[in-house]
């Protein structure tokens, strides 16, 4: 007599691989039309390993448990006015950046995995993508819920999805993910599962979640814990994807290498925003961006690429530029946001004396020499009531869409710039990495929706920058943007803290 209950192994087989079947009246090419055009050769989908062996029924049960605990903590946080226990109201600006810059990427990840999960011939890969799609959707929801409490007490959190689609600097994360989603399914997995989730995700999640912990934001910390086991699964999928592609056929190696080069560079550029957050936006610092890069990329990534050597994979192109750039990029990014704060959904400020000294100590070779003079100058202007705002619009990179604010790797006082002409039009880039990406697929990037150019074409509402910010971005001038010192948000925070002290 057959056993009434399936054992683990049989259950796994029935609920994953057995969900696939051999088609009889349609060709596989017709069912999976996107599986071949990228040049990737798959000879045997059965070689796909599922490292977690998770099935849908176990998945629901496990996730439901986590949700229950998570929402209990959110409720307690809200009832106890947990936002009043954070280190300083400046911290909330990191959350504004996260909610408008990262949370919508979780949604894009959900869309991306749901789509590519449909397009793989192997059932194992399809199930893995399905689960990750659901994870990503859960992350969107839990992040929105974690931060919704802050929306009641702080400015700039009111319309994050709308802002993600429109605000100039949010085109940086948005276009990153749209680039991946408009690629073929294998490039998408190499971009997101491997290059982002496996190689770089620790540089996104650890800084934000440790930043939350160091600054008393228990809601976000708890979200982070709840997402951690999902992230572990995503990272493992990323490594499996790359090993599977490399083992399937030697012709895949150069294709995968080019994708690693491209997506490492795109990810590195995107993480500039995280570096800025760590070095400038956290009142209680976790570690510097340079230290995080050393621990989570140079050490961990070094071991990874040593491991991949046997497949013929080398470390990403231009990786040596990141070793130089780690001493610079966070300062360059904060300089952008400080001077264009009239057009952001968060506040900026000059670091305190103590913070400036922390930056000098963490960046002994660069900060005092290249960056401190500008902050001291801006601070003087501010003291005179002439807070510095740049009245022009910046030049953007055609690929990463970040203002051309990075300096040459070998010339730290010279802005880095590359350019090429394609079919009579001139295009500009911040780096060799971004220029190479364009040169390989110009037809893709000539269509880039560069916010500055769109404003100047009149496609973001008429009038001046203030009208664009107010009407097109839905950022309330004088409330959500500009300098933190003297902002309504700072005043409200001081009033709350004052009341607390009196009551205590």
């Amino acid at each position: 007599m057959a056993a009434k209950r399936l054992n683990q192994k049989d259950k796994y087989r029935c609920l994953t691989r057995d969900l696939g079947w051999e088609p009889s009246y349609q060709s596989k090419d017709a069912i999976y039309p996107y599986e071949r055009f990228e040049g990737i050769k798959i000879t045997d989908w059965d070689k796909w390993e599922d490292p977690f062996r998770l099935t849908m029924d176990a998945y629901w049960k496990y996730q439901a448990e986590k949700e229950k605990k998570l929402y209990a903590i959110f409720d307690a946080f809200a009832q106890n006015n947990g936002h009043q226990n954070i280190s300083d109201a400046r911290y909330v600006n990191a959350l504004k950046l996260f909610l408008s810059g990262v949370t919508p990427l979780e949604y894009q990840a959900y869309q991306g995995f749901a789509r590519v999960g449909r397009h793989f011939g192997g059932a194992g890969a399809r199930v893995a993508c399905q689960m990750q799609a659901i994870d990503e959707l859960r992350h969107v929801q839990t992040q929105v819920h974690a931060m919704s409490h802050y929306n009641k007490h702080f400015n700039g959190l009111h319309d994050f999805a709308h802002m993600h689609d429109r605000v100039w600097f949010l085109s940086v994360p948005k276009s990153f993910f749209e680039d991946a989603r408009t690629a073929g399914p294998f490039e998408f997995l190499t971009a997101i599962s491997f290059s982002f989730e496996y190689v770089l995700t620790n540089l996104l999640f650890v800084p934000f979640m440790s930043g939350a912990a160091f600054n008393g934001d228990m809601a976000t910390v708890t979200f982070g814990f709840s997402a951690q086991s999902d992230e572990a699964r995503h990272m493992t999928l990323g490594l499996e994807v790359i090993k599977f592609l490399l083992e399937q056929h030697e012709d895949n190696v150069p294709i995968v290498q080019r994708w690693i080069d491209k997506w490492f560079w795109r990810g590195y550029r995107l993480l500039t925003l995280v570096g800025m957050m760590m070095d400038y936006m956290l009142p209680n610092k976790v570690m510097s961006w340079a230290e995080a890069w050393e621990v989570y990329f140079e050490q961990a990534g070094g071991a990874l690429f040593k491991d991949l050597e046997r497949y013929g994979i080398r470390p990403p192109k231009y990786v040596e530029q990141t070793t130089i750039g780690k001493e610079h990029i966070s300062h360059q990014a904060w300089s952008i946001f400080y001077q264009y704060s009239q057009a952001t959904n968060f506040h900026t400020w000059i670091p305190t004396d103590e913070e400036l000294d922390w930056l000098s100590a963490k960046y002994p070779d660069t900060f005092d020499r290249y960056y401190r003079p500008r902050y001291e100058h801006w601070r003087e202007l501010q003291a005179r009531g002439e807070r510095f705002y740049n009245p022009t619009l910046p030049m953007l990179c055609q690929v990463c869409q970040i203002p051309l604010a990075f300096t040459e790797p070998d010339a730290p006082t010279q802005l880095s710039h590359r350019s090429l002409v394609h079919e009579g039009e001139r295009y500009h880039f911040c780096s060799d990495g971004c220029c190479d990406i364009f040169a390989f697929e110009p037809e893709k990037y000539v269509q880039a929706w560069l916010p500055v150019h769109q404003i100047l074409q009149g496609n973001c509402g008429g009038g001046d920058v203030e009208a664009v910010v107010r009407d097109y971005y839905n950022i309330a001038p004088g409330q959500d943007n500009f300098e933190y010192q003297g902002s309504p948000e700072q005043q409200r925070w001081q009033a709350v803290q004052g009341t607390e002290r009196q009551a205590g």
Partner: protein
Amino acid sequence: MPVTAIGTYTAQPLDRQANFHGAQLVYLCWENHLLFCAPFTLPVDPAQPFAAFIEQVVKPAIALHPDAARVDFTVARWRLDEQPFSPDLACGLAANGIAHKSLLHLHTPGLEGLGGSHN
């Protein structure tokens, strides 16, 4: 292949000059003045004489820098799309060879930013 796609794929650039309603874009980078975080994107009239471009566009764009008042444009050096460039002050921008989305570098010898720090 200009793009990895499932079939024939052609695309229109989004930033052709025709989309700027008669204006063209010029980017301007003032070297050794990183107080301005990135080069500026400036919409200009292609017929505007270079002298008027200096007065009406360049000077207001850089005015917030303490070095701005000390710039002597008669000795300033220019590069156009990374090549040495001697503008004809009386001629229009387009007639000077400044195309849509050209990048101008402005170098002002003797002015090296705040306290010589290139900021």
